[in-house]
């Protein structure tokens, strides 16, 4: 593919690539590196340490690890990722894809359309829709369940944002699994059914071995995105009393609201490291799959939407 058909020449080619690289360098690479430095200082938004920040070494890191609020926040993030991504989105997404697999027509279009709509609406809109749904006095949920005055967002903030994010993000898993299930030959399922296999046995013995790669891809991507998700801030802002303060909110409140930029940068760097682990695992997975593909023993994993490694950027 590297035939220079238009006669561009190497110097012009470099000139073509350079503007994009400069922008990425300044607004993506440099901030990431700067986080490391800022995290080692006592830099603050205002006051003495703003004018003349001092390098304090690993103090921010020991302070963070010793801070109860940080540890709680980390634990809430783990709950959020496990509850809304690994369990909520992945399981619901698979269940929907499995149920719709041999359906055509309006039912499929309506269900898919609703799931996708919850995914594409802007986040500040869906946040208010959920505030309205869960409202204590006039919320639709209380009207439906006949539980007037139940304050969902105050009494169960984590559960609320976990259910919210399941609703918000299931579309991706649904689409990925729908594509994966197309690679399972119907004749194999038919044979298993005729042999008297239950649905559970069919899933375990016929479907699972063929979509293992997709499951892993899906888990890695949705965990990474959910871990970095800022949207539920618009619903609970981390409250009440920090009971839904997952890590992104913790960084925002301590660094940008509280002015502790150095400390916030240290926590950001920990987030970067965790992201790096997920991303490396994902890229490794893609590479093994590519190699398998080149050898031709790919096991039918073509046309997988998740294999196109476009990942949400900082605009998220």
């Amino acid at each position, binding site marked *: *593919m*590297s*035939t*220079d*058909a238009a*006669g561009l020449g190497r110097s*012009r*080619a*470099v000139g*073509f690539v350079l*503007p*994009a*690289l400069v*922008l*990425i360098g300044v*607004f*993506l690479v440099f*901030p*990431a590196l*700067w*986080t490391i430095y800022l995290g080692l200082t006592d830099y603050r938004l205002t006051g003495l340490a703003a004018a003349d920040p001092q390098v304090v070494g690993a103090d921010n890191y020991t302070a963070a690890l010793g801070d109860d609020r940080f540890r709680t926040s980390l634990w809430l993030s783990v709950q959020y990722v496990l509850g809304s991504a690994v369990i909520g989105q992945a399981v619901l997404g698979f269940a929907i894809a499995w*149920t*719709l697999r041999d359906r055509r027509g309006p039912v499929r279009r309506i*269900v898919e359309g*609703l799931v*996708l*709509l*919850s*995914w594409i*609406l*802007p*986040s500040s*809109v*869906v946040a*208010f829709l959920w505030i*309205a749904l869960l*409202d204590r006095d*006039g*919320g639709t*949920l209380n009207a439906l369940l006949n539980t007037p005055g139940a304050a969902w967002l105050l009494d169960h903030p984590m559960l609320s944002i976990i259910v919210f994010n399941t*609703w918000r993000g299931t579309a*991706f898993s649904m689409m990925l699994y729908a594509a994966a299930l197309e690679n399972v030959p119907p004749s194999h399922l038919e044979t298993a059914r005729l042999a008297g296999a239950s*649905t559970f046995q069919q899933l375990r013995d016929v479907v699972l071995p063929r979509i293992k790669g997709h499951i892993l891809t899906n888990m890695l991507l949705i965990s*990474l995105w959910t871990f*970095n998700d800022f949207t539920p801030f*618009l619903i609970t*802002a981390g409250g009440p009393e920090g009971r839904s303060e997952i890590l992104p909110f913790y960084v*925002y409140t301590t660094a940008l609201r509280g002015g502790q*930029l150095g400390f916030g940068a240290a926590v*950001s760097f920990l987030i970067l490291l965790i*992201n*790096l682990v997920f991303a490396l695992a*994902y890229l490794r997975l893609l590479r093994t799959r590519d190699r398998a593909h080149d050898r031709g023993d790919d096991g039918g994993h073509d046309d997988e*939407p998740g294999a196109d*490694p*476009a*990942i949400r*950027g*900082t*605009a998220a």
Partner: protein
Amino acid sequence: MNAVRHALGRIASAVFLSVVGAFFALPMLWLASAPFDATPSITVSVPEFTLANFRAILDNPYALGSIGNSVIQAGGAAAVVVVLAALAAYALSRVRVPGRDVLLYVLLLLSSVVTGTAAMVPIFELATRLDLIDTHLGVILVVSGGLLPAAIFILKDFMDATPTSYEESARVFGASPLQILRHIVVPVVRPGLATIAVWAVASVWGGFLMQYILLRDPEKSPSAVILYTLYTEGGQPNLDLISTFSLLYSLPVVLMYLFVSGRYGFRFHGGIKQ
């Protein structure tokens, strides 16, 4: 026995799909009813139909302007991303630039690791020092930096799949490289460019965090931020305004989605989403 099992299975799947449909539809019902309700409340109800609520948007000093700001920021970022990504992707696809594969790998890694959440502190600090706080340019540059790696990656795939024979014959007839680019390559890869443009617009249009930390001035804020302040800043929320504004602000994204899915089929690339 088998027939019974089959029937039960059909019933179970119908029940499951109804529950799923209800779960996903329930929060959105309010968006469909409240904007047209003469006395909107927070509870979903059958509206007493009116269009008068849309007036509230005209009465708010920031609502309409914020849609203009969203257009500027989303349009600006989409233009930067499409032009720079197309140039880079073309060069990387056609010319063997040294270290190309490593470069692409690192870019890809970075775009997924350096998220808005992880980089908000240095980005805020950088924007402050470069005097980019409260400017459209600041938002455009920051979000473009985040979107570019994925855009380059997707467009390079696109260019790799395009045969070079047209470019070669144009060259035989004496066209200059830039002419070839403008008159041959751009028309051929137009669907790819359109996909990237739509994706960039949708990302920035719905994006919240970067816009929220880079803009203080409500005169410059896009709809995503203004809407949030409408329901969080003190007092009784103005429901006519919130509901109609939400609807108006959501509409372009939904229309774009319908356009893309109608035109190219809705084949999603990985995380193509804001």
